């Protein structure tokens, strides 16, 4: 019996963001943008979706008079990611 993959994570950009955040304590929007090669608009939308799902925390601050967005993965996000990888491994195991 295979569980459905989490639809929030099973999309390219959101999975990329979560995969980046799983390995770091926190990351700025500019870092995520650089590593994913996404457009600012698209990335903002996907970050908002992850935030709405409770998978990440978004902190907005000002740095040198410029807005700064810092993203952190939450405990719920870590659990969801672990579950996603576990299910992914089950699917891949099945298809071997």
């Amino acid at each position, binding site marked *: 019996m295979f569980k459905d993959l989490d639809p929030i994570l099973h999309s390219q950009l959101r999975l990329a963001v979560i995969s980046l955040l799983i390995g*770091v304590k926190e990351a700025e929007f500019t870092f995520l943008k650089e590593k994913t090669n996404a457009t600012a608009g698209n990335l903002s939308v996907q970050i908002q979706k992850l935030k709405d799902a409770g998978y990440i925390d978004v902190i907005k601050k000002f740095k040198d008079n410029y807005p700064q967005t810092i993203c952190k993965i939450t405990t719920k996000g870590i659990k969801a990611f672990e579950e996603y990888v576990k299910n992914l491994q089950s699917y891949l195991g099945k298809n071997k």
Partner: protein
Amino acid sequence: MQQKELTEQESLKLITEMIGKTQSHFHESGASTILWGTVISFCALVSFAQSFWNFSIGFDIWILTLVAVAPQIWIGIKEGRSRVVKTYQDSHIDTIWTVYVISIFAMLVYANIVSYTSVKLLAGDGLEIFSKNISTGEVKPYRIFPPSFSSVMMVLYAFPTLATGLITKYKPLIAGAFICYTCFVVSLFTSFTYDMLLSAIATICCWLIPGLMLRNKYLKQKKEKDV
């Protein structure tokens, strides 16, 4: 990167790729390491020179270490602002160096207070320690000071350096820390004069040289990124 549905294989590939990107992110500029490697080795060399050639510059050269706190704060603020990502590794290394700074400060307080406290405690028991010059027979009160204090400081210099080197797997820091431990062992058998020379060698090897190498790596990476 587009927003699209993925196959299971693509998902796994993407996760691996992104995790790899965070691990390869390198931002250590080496500025703090160079600063402290320069300041401590300079102070130690001046102390060695004063003791070896028997002259005085008229003030305690180690005051420079307090002066160096100002540029260190500036470096810390500047690097904190330019840091776009904070890894767990960064966080652990920051903790190690914070504990190191507290420990160094505690050791300096210890060295300055314990001498007077010991004299007072001995006096309370009706005791006083004297030293006798075996050539002239002259006897004078002996000022108690932690013996070979610079040796203890070298152990302290090596500790955060080795921990950082092992966490980051940066070989120049690991090698520097081992040279520092070697200087510590040698210093157990040498006088204050040579302890100062060994302290200079230790800090040049464990901070200044790895710091310059880190700086070189950082500038190279920055140049590549800007092209």
